[in-house]
């Protein structure tokens, strides 16, 4: 039973210029109740790794540099 991957547009986006993950910040990753955010070590920024969003907003509200934007997932808009 082989697997295929289907691309999907994710609701949480990160402004790479503002993100300070490269300085050791993991706030958005820490506060996500669904654990869908991660740090891209190569780029030094956070990103949405899994499309499992409750659009609950702590990642955006707690980000110290306002780098995170939560949109309503496309299926719900």
């Amino acid at each position, binding site marked *: 039973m082989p697997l295929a991957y289907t691309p999907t547009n994710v609701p949480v986006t990160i402004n790479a210029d503002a993100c*300070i993950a490269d*300085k*050791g*910040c993991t*706030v958005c990753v820490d506060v996500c109740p669904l654990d869908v955010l991660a740090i891209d070590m190569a780029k030094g920024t956070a990103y949405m790794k899994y499309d499992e969003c409750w659009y609950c907003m702590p990642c955006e509200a707690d980000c*110290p540099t306002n780098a995170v934007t939560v949109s309503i997932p496309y299926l719900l808009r």
Partner: protein
Amino acid sequence: MSLMFEEESGIDEVAERIASDDAAVRRIAVMELAEVSFDPEAELLAIKALSDADGDVRLEAARVLYEFDGDAVAQALVDALQDSEEKVRLAAAETLFENKDGSVAPILIKALQSTTDSFVMAALLRALREHRVAETQQIALQGLTHADASVRREAVGVLAYLKAEEVVLALMDAARNDADPEVRRVAVGSLVFSKTDKSCEVLQGALQDDNWQVREEAAFVIGKLGRQECVDALIAAMDDGYWEVCVKSARSLGQLKSRKAVEVLGSALGHGMSNLRKEAAASLGEIGDKSARPYLLQAQEDVDPDVRKLVQWALQRIG
């Protein structure tokens, strides 16, 4: 090693990062002080960070001090109310307000006595409100005549929380004469604690205030105080252009059980706004006078189920 036994970042490690040359690294480290707030070292580091060269680091320090108690913390936050950056000043004010530890009140009062800055004064008065210490009364009374409306608003707040009869005259004056509608509204609202019948005239006057929210507050307070002398003014307020004011007036007329109000409440059963019809029906029930029956009978088929239910309830009460 199992993750489960991994220790949270220790205070030494955080302290090392707080000494970094990179402001972003310092900022993140300051935020992490929340996790080690039980360590006395953490408090010192947080206070020190309030004088960091970088505004963002100071901002996080003002926020993280929420996790700590005590005089040193309060004094540091008071000082931060005069930070060069507004975001730091606002965060310090918020943290002082959130702090529930009444033992720091003397520090706040002392600071209040030695400042002329209106932002600092408003922030300190707001922080002192919930502590309810008698020593604040005098200074709050002075604040009532301050040029800045935000200081006056917080001064009214302090006095209202103290519920001291001897300041009622000053609150009545603010309710009647303050130039700022929000100050007048809060002052009118503050009168609910006072037993004095002198407030009657002020409340009646407030029912004719230019601002509808002041009028609404006055209608509410009259009912809560059970001021029979204000019935005529409430009946007149049933003609207010804002139905929100009429709703509160109707509610209060019910609480006052005023038979004189049956006619005006009966007419309100035909008002376009169902919120008002609801309140009028409930109040007619509370008044319990038979003369309300014809109005209520006519309203039995109201389109709004809530109105219908209250009409039935009122008819049963009247009997």
